[in-house]
């Protein structure tokens, strides 16, 4: 089965080619959607096979590399088109293909009747292929293909409604921001490659080889440089501070895209990458701290913005940013397993949330369309009380919301709580751990708040849609609800895979599974970890309880503000108008970037072109020509036509020549 790993990305590629090249001719939506969905489902099957095979192997043999064909061999540099199968990539392919299949299925219903139906499925398949390359790549360069490939697909899918200017802008923004990250990725790659090569004559970018040689890496220094660069790459892809602004804008794409790319898979690539190279990252305490701090900051920062958004998808988007922050926080405190675990659970519940919101929007859109209203189908202020009209959507949505809020028993609780606990108890960052935990907890509070705000505004209370449209609101078709239900279930129970040891009920399968992957990282980390008094179980229980309380407080607040006392938010806004405006406008980060980078770049470009290129560079060139022409004019008019002038010139020539030799 391992040998067939190349089939996993191949199937979506085939799907992409069929739909991309012939989709326009096929026209039949069922066929197109069927091909797209089946292809990714086949991949899922192969992934399952691989997973099964891997489970059957002893942990130390759970690594397999498959070279498909040689790619770039040049000098010392060698990069093959090769795939790496290990527990980590297994988790990822399962998530990608699994969630991917569901979302494909969902899209058949959701995208029904769209003009570029075939285009959508082609892109979606292409995305899956890229994502699979990313997670399966056995060297940094294959990973980078996927890395950029998902960026491309994200670009294509965000710009799916290309006739909308905002979609085009968002797509471009996404790609460019990702490119900023790629810049970091490349520099990191170069640094690592060069350091190993020039110092140890190991010229490699292969993960396994780097892993084998990772003991040669120093702590800090060059590793810090390299990992920080990689981390820049991760921030771009995973929408962390400072490169997060593209993700909310990316909601311009169709909702399944948001679910698949901007929640479940692509945006987690940064986390995956850090996990993949944990043995390098861990060697730089500085980087780890930066990751943790950035992660925590992003978590709280995005959460604050999430509290004030009215667009249903935007709330989810900021929530995603915030949750990604959690994952980075986990990575930063060395809790790689927890990070990956949260990645997985997040994929479940966030995909479910997005799909659910898609279902709502779909229904809203349909209803509004029927009454020819131009109201925004995504604005929560137009919704309310939808739970009756859309029960399945409501239930799955609620389950996922509970999961994300960290209510015990649901998947989010296990992963999130582990992160919080690890950030508190980690031994890497000294006294910073309290702060990290505090921020994490605060973010959890906000998460619970805005997520329930979302639920309350959407599904509870008065129905604020125009009354005549009300009758058109109805539950979505099965093709949409089935994925919702599957994901809802996963969101609910997925967490039991990685139940913390402290519960003592189930073994932490997830941790055991990933142990061979992060073993080395833990070993390296222990070199500089400050082994203080080991935090007691009591403390762990206490903190767990505290986080549950926090979640409940958040839910309660939301309930108060949006169900019981609906005028409270208005009052709040009236009391702190500046704060609200700042939060509502996403802390003006976009404007800041425009001010700092975009506008200066354009202005500089204008200046360089009009001011430098044309005036100075070309001016010098033309200036030389003009000077020569001017001299030409002078010479020309010296040719006066008078014989005596000519004779004078001759005589002068003679006199000067003679004079030179006589008086020299």
């Amino acid at each position: 089965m391992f040998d067939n790993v190349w089939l996993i990305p191949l199937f979506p590629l085939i799907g992409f080619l069929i739909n991309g090249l012939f989709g326009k001719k096929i026209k039949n939506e069922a066929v197109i959607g069927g091909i797209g969905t089946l292809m990714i489902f086949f991949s899922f099957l192969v992934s399952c096979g691989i997973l099964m095979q891997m489970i059957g192997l002893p942990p130390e043999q759970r690594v397999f590399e498959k070279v498909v064909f040689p790619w770039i061999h040049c000098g010392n540099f060698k990069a093959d088109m090769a795939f790496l199968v290990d527990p980590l990539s297994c988790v990822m392919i399962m998530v990608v293909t699994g969630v991917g299949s569901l979302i494909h299925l969902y899209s058949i219903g959701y995208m029904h009747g769209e003009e570029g139906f075939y285009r959508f499925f082609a892109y979606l398949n292409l995305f899956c292929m890229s994502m699979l390359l990313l997670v399966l790549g056995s060297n940094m360069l294959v990973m980078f293909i996927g890395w950029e490939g998902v960026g491309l697909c994200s670009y294509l899918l965000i710009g799916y409604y290309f006739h909308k200017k905002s979609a085009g802008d968002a797509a471009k923004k996404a790609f460019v921001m990702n490119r900023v990250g790629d810049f970091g990725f490349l520099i990191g790659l170069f640094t690592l490659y060069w350091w190993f090569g020039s110092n140890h004559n190991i010229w490699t970018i292969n993960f396994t080889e780097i892993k084998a040689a990772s003991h040669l890496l120093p702590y800090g220094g060059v590793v810090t440089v390299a990992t920080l660069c990689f981390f820049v790459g991760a921030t771009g892809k995973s929408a962390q501070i400072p490169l997060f602004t593209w993700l909310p804008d990316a909601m311009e794409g169709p909702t399944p895209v948001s679910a698949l790319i901007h929640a479940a898979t692509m945006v987690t690539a940064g986390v995956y990458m850090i996990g993949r190279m944990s043995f390098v990252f861990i060697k730089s305490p500085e980087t780890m701290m930066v990751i943790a701090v950035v992660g925590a900051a992003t978590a709280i920062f995005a959460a604050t913005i999430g509290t004030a958004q009215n667009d249903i998808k935007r709330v989810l988007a900021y929530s995603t940013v915030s949750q990604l922050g959690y994952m980075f926080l986990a990575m930063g405190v060395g809790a790689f397993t927890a990070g990956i675990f949260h990645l997985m659970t997040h994929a479940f519940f966030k995909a479910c949330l997005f799909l659910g919101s898609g279902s709502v929007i779909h229904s809203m859109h349909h209803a509004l369309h029927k009454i020819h209203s131009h109201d925004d189908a995504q604005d929560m202020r137009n919704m309310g009380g939808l739970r009756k009209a859309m029960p399945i959507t409501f239930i799955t949505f609620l389950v996922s919301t509970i999961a994300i809020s960290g209510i015990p028993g649901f998947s989010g609780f296990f992963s999130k709580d582990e992160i919080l606990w690890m950030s508190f108890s980690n031994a890497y960052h000294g006294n910073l751990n309290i702060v990290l935990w505090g921020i994490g907890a605060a973010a959890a509070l906000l998460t619970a708040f805005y997520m329930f705000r979302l639920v309350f505004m959407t599904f509870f209370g008065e129905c604020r849609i125009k009354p005549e449209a009300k009758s058109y609101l109805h539950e979505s078709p099965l093709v949409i609800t089935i994925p919702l239900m599957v994901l809802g279930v996963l969101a609910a129970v997925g967490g039991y895979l990685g139940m913390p040891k402290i519960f003592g009920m189930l073994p932490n399968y997830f941790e055991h599974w990933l142990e061979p992957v992060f073993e080395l990282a833990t070993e390296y980390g222990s070199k500089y970890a400050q082994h203080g008094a080991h935090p007691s179980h009591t403390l762990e229980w206490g903190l767990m309880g505290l986080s549950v309380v926090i979640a409940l407080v958040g839910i309660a607040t939301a309930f108060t503000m949006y169900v019981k006392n609906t005028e409270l938010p208005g009052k709040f806004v009236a009391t702190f108008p500046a704060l609200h405006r700042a939060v509502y406008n996403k802390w003006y980060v976009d404007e800041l970037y425009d001010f700092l980078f975009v506008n200066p770049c354009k202005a500089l470009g204008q200046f360089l072109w009009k001011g430098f290129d044309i005036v100075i560079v070309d001016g010098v060139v033309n200036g030389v020509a003009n000077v020569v022409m001017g001299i030409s004019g002078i010479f020309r008019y010296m040719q006066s036509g008078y014989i005596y002038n000519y004779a004078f010139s001759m005589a002068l020539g003679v006199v000067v020549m003679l004079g030179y030799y006589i008086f020299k």
Partner: protein
Amino acid sequence: MDMISIPVVNMTPILPEIVLSVLAMALLLINVFAPGGQKSFLAYISFIGIIVAAVLVGTGWGNHIESFSGSVVLDNFATFFKVTFLVAAGLAVLISDQYMEREGCNHGELYPLILFTVVGMMLMASGTDLMTIFLGLEVMSVSLYVLAGFNRANRKSNEAGLKYFLLGSFSTGFLLYGMALIYGATGTTRLYKIAVIVGQMTLPSANIMLVAGMLLMMTGFAFKIAAAPFHMWTPDVYEGAPTPMTAFMSAGPKAAGFAALLRLFLVALPTLQVEWSQVLWVLAVLTMTVGNITALRQDNIKRILAYSSIAHAGYALVGFAAGNGTGTSGILFYMLSYAFMNIGAFAIVILVAKKGETNGNVMDFAGLGFKRPVLAVVMTIFLFSLAGVPPAAGFIGKFYLFAGAVQKGYIWLAVIGVLNSAASAYYYLRIMVYMYMKEPTEEFEWVHVTAPVALALIIAVAGTVIPGIVPSFILQYAQMAVKLL
């Protein structure tokens, strides 16, 4: 004292000259009895005569015969230049008829005068005595004064003749004064003897009389080759003279000037090479720069070509300043190819121009490229060759000239030279711009290309392109020609 016994002389060295002189005189006679108006056959006869002379010249290759007690010599150097003169004259003869007919001054005396000019030039190239060279120069010049003013009904032609004459005789004054000083300083007018005497001097460069004589002589020849600052007659005379004569003047006399100057400096004054190199260095730079830069702002095509001709003298002077085998053989090659390309270019100018030379501006070339593509392509070849773009003879020539300078260590001279070439590209391109990239301003008149002109064009194109692609044989001849100096 006994009777003067006329010495027995070997006539071989001046056989071509004799043939041409006799032919010229015969033509003068034939002209008198020629049927009225029909002068074309004179051109054919002259052309045949020139070919015969060329054959005679060719048979002299490889010889080294001194004759007339050292007044004249037949050697490869002279032979090479004689071929160049004959090429120039042959082409000029071919392109004259149509033009002269159109301008209404088709006097039969034209051809004898051209032939006499050639005789004068040949004497300059083969003369080894200051007197021979001087007389050759004068035969050439006097003929040219007449040829420049040949179209006597035309004011421009009058003026050209007059200017050329006055300035020419002015320069002759300097030349003679220089010769006098050389004579005084060395006691002889025979070049070989001068060489011996100068060679015996302890420090010839300290003898200011010798150096001054050299400089003054250089002045005289610099005038003929149109080197700055003795070039100022060139544009005016070239513009005013009948176009075929301009073509001839730009190729023949320039080559003759170089021939004489080369022989003088390399045979008689090689010991002063440091001095004359220095001067030629400066002259070369001045000439190239003035010629090229002034040409940039010209509109009259004959003036453009005149300034270009000045510039080309400058390039040749670069090789001369180097004074080594590479540079001097480059001059020989260059002069020969220049004869082809420049006369070719003037031939096109003749064809495009209308009666009274009213069509002499670059603007009048507008649209030529597609109305008369063959003429335009031919012109383009000449222009590229003049600009020194490979694979044309002009490039190879320039290459050897600049290579000579580099070999001698005059790298900056070569650099100035190439920069000048680049600047020159502008005005050559300008003509092409009009030919190909502008629409004609007025209706294009169909120009009839007569057989002789067509023949001339074919020869000129062949002479421009073939040496550009396979220059080896001509270059080897040029090398041999300068080796014996």
